[in-house]
């Protein structure tokens, strides 16, 4: 700088010193966990609005619109009932329709959350590259959308359970904490698959197979007693800790009078359900936060 009379106090500084002097920060600095959580809380309205928008948009091209929210689980249940109830004729389970629908609807909650979670980041690159917001909003919005869907299908489920002759009992209240624990579990799971799906786009092709295998391992379509009968003891023990089986069993304990259950001890069932919710919820959040700077790049 030639003009000494109006000397610039910043002359002679290197770029880094200049930045430090005015408190500028490196553009892609990763946020701390506390900072990230605080920002996420600030964005709660965005999560709710975005989840709602997605729900509306998902049916906007169908003529029956929101009705599909109820029709989809119903048709699903009808198909499975046709094959497993009528063609293969289940006799071991009393009230098979209610048993099947409970398993199916509860499992479907996690299944769609995980499937939509894999594209939560990779399907929203436009939004991610344009605006800065905590990316965890996207997988969380997926969970909220699926939760809203679940509420719709739960109404159908309760109707089915009543129509097939189950009584209304206080045990129904179990459903509330059970579904909440499952929602926390789903949120964590969605964040895990969202980060993985952001890096490995092939995951979207693999997910349907993973979910199908998981469904067969969760005793949705047949009696869970089959695990005990046909698997070696250690494997059957392992299945008892399958989170999906646990959440489904809790719902069955809540709604059905004498459905077969694999976990005979109710406290153990609750402990495993709570444990999975905490491990998956916290673990998934930490895992997703660690990758925050990677999303939308490449």
């Amino acid at each position, binding site marked *: 700088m030639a003009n000494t009379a109006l000397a610039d106090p910043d002359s002679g500084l290197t770029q880094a010193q200049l930045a430090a002097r005015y408190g500028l920060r490196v*553009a892609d600095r990763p946020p701390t966990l506390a900072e990230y959580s605080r920002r996420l809380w600030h964005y709660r309205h965005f999560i709710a*609005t975005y989840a709602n928008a997605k729900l509306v*948009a998902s049916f906007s091209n169908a003529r029956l619109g929101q009705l599909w929210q109820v029709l989809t689980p119903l048709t699903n249940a009808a198909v499975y009932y046709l094959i497993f109830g009528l063609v293969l004729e289940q006799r071991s389970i009393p009230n098979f329709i209610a048993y099947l629908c409970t398993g199916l609807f509860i499992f479907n909650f996690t299944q769609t959350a995980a499937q939509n979670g894999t594209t939560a980041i990779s399907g929203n690159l436009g939004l991610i590259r344009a605006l800065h917001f905590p990316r965890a909003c996207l997988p969380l919005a997926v969970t909220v959308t699926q939760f809203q869907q679940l509420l719709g299908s739960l109404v159908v489920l309760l109707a089915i359970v009543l129509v097939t002759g189950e009584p209304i009992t206080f045990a129904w209240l179990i459903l509330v904490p059970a579904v909440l624990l499952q929602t926390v579990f789903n949120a964590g799971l969605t964040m895990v698959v969202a980060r993985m799906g952001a890096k490995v786009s092939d995951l979207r092709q693999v997910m349907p197979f993973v979910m199908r295998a998981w469904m067969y391992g969760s005793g949705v379509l047949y009696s869970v007693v089959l695990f005990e009968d046909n698997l070696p003891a250690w494997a059957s023990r392992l299945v008892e800790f399958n989170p999906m089986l646990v959440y489904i069993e809790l719902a069955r304990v809540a709604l059905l009078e004498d459905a077969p259950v694999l976990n005979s001890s109710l406290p153990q069932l609750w402990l495993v359900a709570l444990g999975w919710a905490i491990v998956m919820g916290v673990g998934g959040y930490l895992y997703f936060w660690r990758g925050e700077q990677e999303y939308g790049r490449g």
Partner: protein
Amino acid sequence: MVDQYETSNDATLTLPRVQERIPTVVVDDAHVIYRVHKGATGGSSPVAALRRIVTRTSEPNIREVHAVKGVTFTAYRGEAIGLIGSNGSGKSTLLRAIAGLLPVNRGAVYTQGQPSLLGVNAALLNDLSGERNVTLGCLAMGMTPAEVQRQTPEIIEFSGINERGDFASLPMRTYSSGMAARLRFSIAAAKKHDVLLIDEALATGDKGFRKRSEQRVRELRESAGTVFLVSHQLSSIRDTCERTIWLESGVLRMDGATDEVIRAYEAFANGK
């Protein structure tokens, strides 16, 4: 080759009082290298992939592109800076690096607050109405619901999408590309940004909208922000920016007063 622009001298000449110039973006010898997947070429057959695994050679269909090669400059509060250069000269890459969306491989980019990048491909939800997209976009920028409610009519009014009937309540997929771009610009411009990066966004609107958006860019600048504008329309750079940076093949070719830089750039482009 690089003309360093001595803004301080200029500023003291034109302004009656000496203002403290506060840097908002400091770019220090930034290099951006990104890896490009060339897609399915001949080398991606299963046999070729197997051979690569066996012989341990790296994948041939990934190529490294050194898009920005050691750019250094400082941007100050209240400036509007144009970025010009031929196609593929690294302008958009540089903007994305400033926005923190692309990591720099060497050097550093320091910014005040969080820069916002506004590009023509910043897609919102096409299945939703324009109005809901405004709400979503504002919430995504961190506004509170009360602020959003207050701003929504203004944003729609500014975008002018309702000039030909009630388009705000129609899904965005029914919009023309110009209308969608106008709405996106209007959303982003509704918030005060410390640093706003605009990538060709003004080029898509019609003449009336261009005038309004240039006015808006000036307002944003006056409200203590710094605006970067990438455009091939030299006229819109001339109208909005007093300082211009010319990038060529990832190298900062010239940095100075808009008139000078554009004159040199035009001479270069015509001589090519």
